[in-house]
């Protein structure tokens, strides 16, 4: 099996999403609050996986712009869950060594006195292994 195919299958496995269920209606992109910040748009996640171009997906900005707010998951008429796909791509990055999107060194300057623990905890979960 080619490396590309393997990566695509890994995304499908981690996310538990079957991208072939997508009917390309674009409701995910219509509903996404981070749409304008993303380079690869939510409805495109599916075709990147189908076309086995996980490389582009894991290098995209979109990885770090998804809020995991599940609007796309809730409103998708085909139960595709694009939000889970992009999270799987993010997992593939942060599970590699030295690929964290957030390092402890960055923290002090990001802190402010009112900042709730929840924010740090959540960010660590999403950005790091």
């Amino acid at each position: 099996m080619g490396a590309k195919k393997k990566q695509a299958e890994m995304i499908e496995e981690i996310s538990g999403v079957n991208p072939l269920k997508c009917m390309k209606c674009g409701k995910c992109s219509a509903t996404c609050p981070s749409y304008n910040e993303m380079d690869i748009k939510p409805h495109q996640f599916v075709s990147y996986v189908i076309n086995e171009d996980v490389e582009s997906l894991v290098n995209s900005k979109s990885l770090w712009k998804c809020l995991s707010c599940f609007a796309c998951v809730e409103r998708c008429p085909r139960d595709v869950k694009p939000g889970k796909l992009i999270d799987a791509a993010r997992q593939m990055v942060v599970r590699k060594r030295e690929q964290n999107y957030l390092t402890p060194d960055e923290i002090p300057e990001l802190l402010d006195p009112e900042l709730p623990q929840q924010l740090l905890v959540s960010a660590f979960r999403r950005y790091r292994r």
Partner: protein
Amino acid sequence: MQRIGVFVCHCGSNIAATVDVAKVAEMALMEPGVVHAEDYQYMCSEAGQAKIADAIHEKKLSGIVVCSCSPRMHEATFRKAAERAGLNPYMVEIANIREHCSWIHKDMEEATKKAVILMRAAVAKVNLNTPLKPGESRVTKRALIIGGGIAGIQTALDIADAGYEVDIVEKTPSIGGRMSQLDKTFPTLDCSACILTPKMVEASAHEKINIYTYSEVEKVSGFVGDFTVDIRKKARSVDMDKCTGCGVCQEKCPSKKAPSEFNRGLNTRSAIYTPFAQAIPNVPVIDREACIKFKTGKCGICSKVCQAGAIDYEQKDEIITEKYGAIVVATGFDTINLDKYDEYAYSQSKDVITSLELERVMNAAGPTHGHLERLSDGKAPKEMVFIQCVGSRCSDDRGKPYCSKICCMYTAKHAMLIRDKYPDVNVTVFYIDVRTPGKNFDEFYRRAVEQYGVNYIKGQVGKVIPQPNGKLLVQGSDLLDNKQILKEADMVVLATAIEPNPDVRKIATMLTASIDTNNFLTEAHAKLRPVESPTAGIFLSGVCQGPKDIPETVAQAGAAAVKAIGLLAKDKLMTNPCTAHSDELLCNGCSTCENVCPYGAITYEDKEVNDHGIREVRRLAVVNSALCQGCGACTVACPSGAMDLQGFSNRQIIAEVDAICR
């Protein structure tokens, strides 16, 4: 001992590609009773049937097994072939080696093994078959149509024109159905009422058609050719014979707050009402929930103003029992409830409406007298947005998995009509696909785009956001431009999915007609018997069978009528001979079978029997084979083993079990 012939069909390559048919035939010769076996390319062809006939004559066969497609497909064909060759048709058994074998297995060895086992089971069964003779039953020459929309009306007219009596049962106070609520129809833009009302008048004036409005089917018993149906005529509180239809009662009725069903709840009606001006019959009903007289005992104004003295507060529901030979279901559709789709803000804004509601808004008899206006403030809209596939093509449990089929076309119609009448209104349509297969359909849609400048955007809408200024912000995708669009609109129209009328489940249960997971009635064969239910004597007309537009509905209504006429034209029907019968010597008279029989086909009689020389009178079960439908419930319930089912006897089924487990 039987002399059995086994005929193995190749079905072209459908069977032969995965099953070694010659091997099946070869193995058949080793089975007890088998004296002849052969395989042939198409057993159902004339040449194939001739081979069967020849073998019956030459080898003096007493039973045959055809290894072929499903018995639901060609059992009748082969039984007829056998009958022509002088064999009792019930000496034929089918081994289903296509649908249950060759089509689902890929490995030739495995599939052949299975085909052999299925053949063995059929041979084992036919060894125990006995010749059966069907009985006869009569046909009541009268048809019942459930539902008085365009489908029901058309079917009724066609059957009545052929000379048979027809009753239409309609739940609401008037016939007309959904079509009466439409303003214009695609693709010719005919006025819906203008083409429907003549049909309604024709039906009501037809001497062979009898219409029960404000009535529902309550109970159905019997079977093809001889159904007995109870119809509940709900109390109208108005004497249909006396009422002249002058309408004064409706004008004077002080209770005017009930939501109008006809206008989809967009405005209100009086408690005594006819749903719309052209209603047939033109006799109002009193909505007892809304009527002040019924609620408080005081009022009675309608009675005072009625010069004909037609108001009758004491009227009661009436049950009418009638016999029918055929029943046609024409229960139609409704739009789905949008509670689960509130991202489109349907419940949050009055200016988000369904397409059916827009029909009422655009109609001269509608809540806005045909003026296109916002229902919140009555202002004329400048920007209109249409959203397609709301609840259609959804595989989650919020909506329907199917395409509602009519929405693409009626949206093009709405867009076109609005652009035509109000050229300053911009119309945008968010679509996933535009589906226009139909005569002059794509041309119609292209006209909307090219001639009327309707803006079609490929992409679904994610959210409709009501603004404090009363406008609606539509957040959608433009997939071709790869943009997220925010569009301010004055009105949003949702192409809401259609679903079968919710009552259809109840009706299907009464009729024992099959229904699919979406509550559409199942046809006997998807391609070849599209207007018949698998239940004999039940026919399907209109959307109750699947989404359809008006021309298709009318065509199917005609087809259902032809099928019903074909049945009514017969004087006698052959009954299924696979009925239960009781062994008098084994029956202990316990009545268990009588209690489980859904058809009342079993009665008990005192009969004299000769039990090994002892003559005595015993209480015994007797099956009326004209009533018995052959389900077999009694055979299992019988504690003494006296009751058995012809064609599916205990010994036959056990022989099949043994053959499979051998």
